[in-house]
């Protein structure tokens, strides 16, 4: 298992021959609150070569739990969320699979990542043997309300993983604008 820092990447399939399915585990801890609390939601966006979402349907989250092609599905067993990715079934037009967390934009005080004690994204084999782990560095997250944790992307006929930890201050609306999604 290798720990990653923001911006680093790893040759996922080149270093793990035969790896055709990966499990993405996402977890976080929040500071408990008696009042309205920020609610984090994991989301996966399937992007083309231009970095934009292929379509609004190429987005996987808790209310749309399987991609149109069936290559990505929310499964759930450990962590807060687990996502199965069948790399062989990912359609050719998909160049990148972006994994992010957003704070649900409830009109009654949505909150920010300020209440997040820690958050991580880990990449494991189908059998849950951990390969990579990225823990979001602790910093000033008071204004952050969406964050790209990392991405799987095609490279030289295989797949690589890049840790990011890129925060947004304009929340899901900014994510939607970046990926040209209608959210």
């Amino acid at each position, binding site marked *: 298992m290798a720990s990653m820092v923001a911006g680093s990447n790893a040759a996922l399939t080149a270093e793990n021959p035969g790896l055709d399915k990966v499990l993405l585990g996402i977890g976080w801890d929040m500071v408990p609150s008696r009042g309205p609390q920020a609610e984090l939601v994991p989301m996966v966006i399937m992007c083309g070569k231009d970095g934009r979402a292929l379509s609004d349907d190429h987005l996987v989250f808790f209310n749309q739990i399987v991609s149109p092609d069936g290559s990505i599905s929310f499964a759930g067993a450990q962590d807060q969320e687990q996502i199965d990715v069948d790399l062989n079934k990912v359609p050719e037009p998909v160049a990148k699979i972006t994994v992010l967390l957003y704070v649900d934009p409830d009109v009654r005080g949505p909150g920010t990542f300020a209440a997040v004690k820690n958050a991580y994204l880990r990449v494991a084999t189908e059998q849950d043997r951990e390969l990579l782990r990225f823990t979001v560095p602790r910093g000033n997250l008071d204004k952050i309300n969406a964050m790209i944790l990392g991405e799987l992307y095609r490279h030289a006929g295989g797949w690589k993983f890049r840790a990011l930890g890129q925060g947004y201050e304009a929340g899901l609306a900014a994510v939607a604008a970046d990926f040209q999604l209608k*959210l």
Partner: protein
Amino acid sequence: MALDRSALRTDIGYLSRRRKPAAQPEPAVPSSRSAAPASGAAASGGLTLGAPPAVSGGLTLGVRPARAPSTSAAAVSTRGPRPAPAVSDRLFPAPDFGSLRELGEANPVVRLNPRQSAIGSLLVAGARSVAWEDNRLTTGAQHAEGLQAGTPVSTAGNRPLAGLQDGAGIVSLRHVRLLRRVLFVAGETPLTIGVFDGAAAAVAARNHAGLRSVLYVVRVGAVLELRAEFVPADAPDAAIWARFGFTMTIPLDQRVLLR
């Protein structure tokens, strides 16, 4: 720690996921079809109930003709997630939310997509009361004047699943999977409905016959449907809730439940 893939997440109530198949050793090279059946029976591509097909006296569903063992790419195991059937395949046609500016007797129904149904809040301005029913049939209601009936439903984010705040009805869409249905009763101003992506629609407070408008919201799988209905203008809210089958549940003190 070993991964228990046969177990569903029961600690998060909003999830509705496929049940993973029981953990089975996966061969390094997909060759599950390459092994010839020991009995020489036909390889079934579908669900088979009862005895093997060759001697079956029971019900057999979807038996296909015997297939020659193959190691071709087409014979790769089909285990794993299947594409979700499109929602549109299972629901009657209805306009998308955002395609109609006004709901009324001519166009009473719109349907939200799974993203509109699950991000942020469903905001309904102009409502004088709201009644809700969750997936456990817990039912409650709130009036704009502050009166409450039945049982409130709280979510993991410490917000009510549905309620009124600052003169507007609000449904927490993060927890849409907890919701069964909601009823908003119009006051004296039009009901205006909005979601996170900016799509919106309105319902006049009264129709041409002077009947009062109500907005009935029901969850169908992953999507919400909105329907404008009309009730006698002078009907009290409790009668309207009853007319739509909302029977208030009695809130139980948790201490009683723990005994």
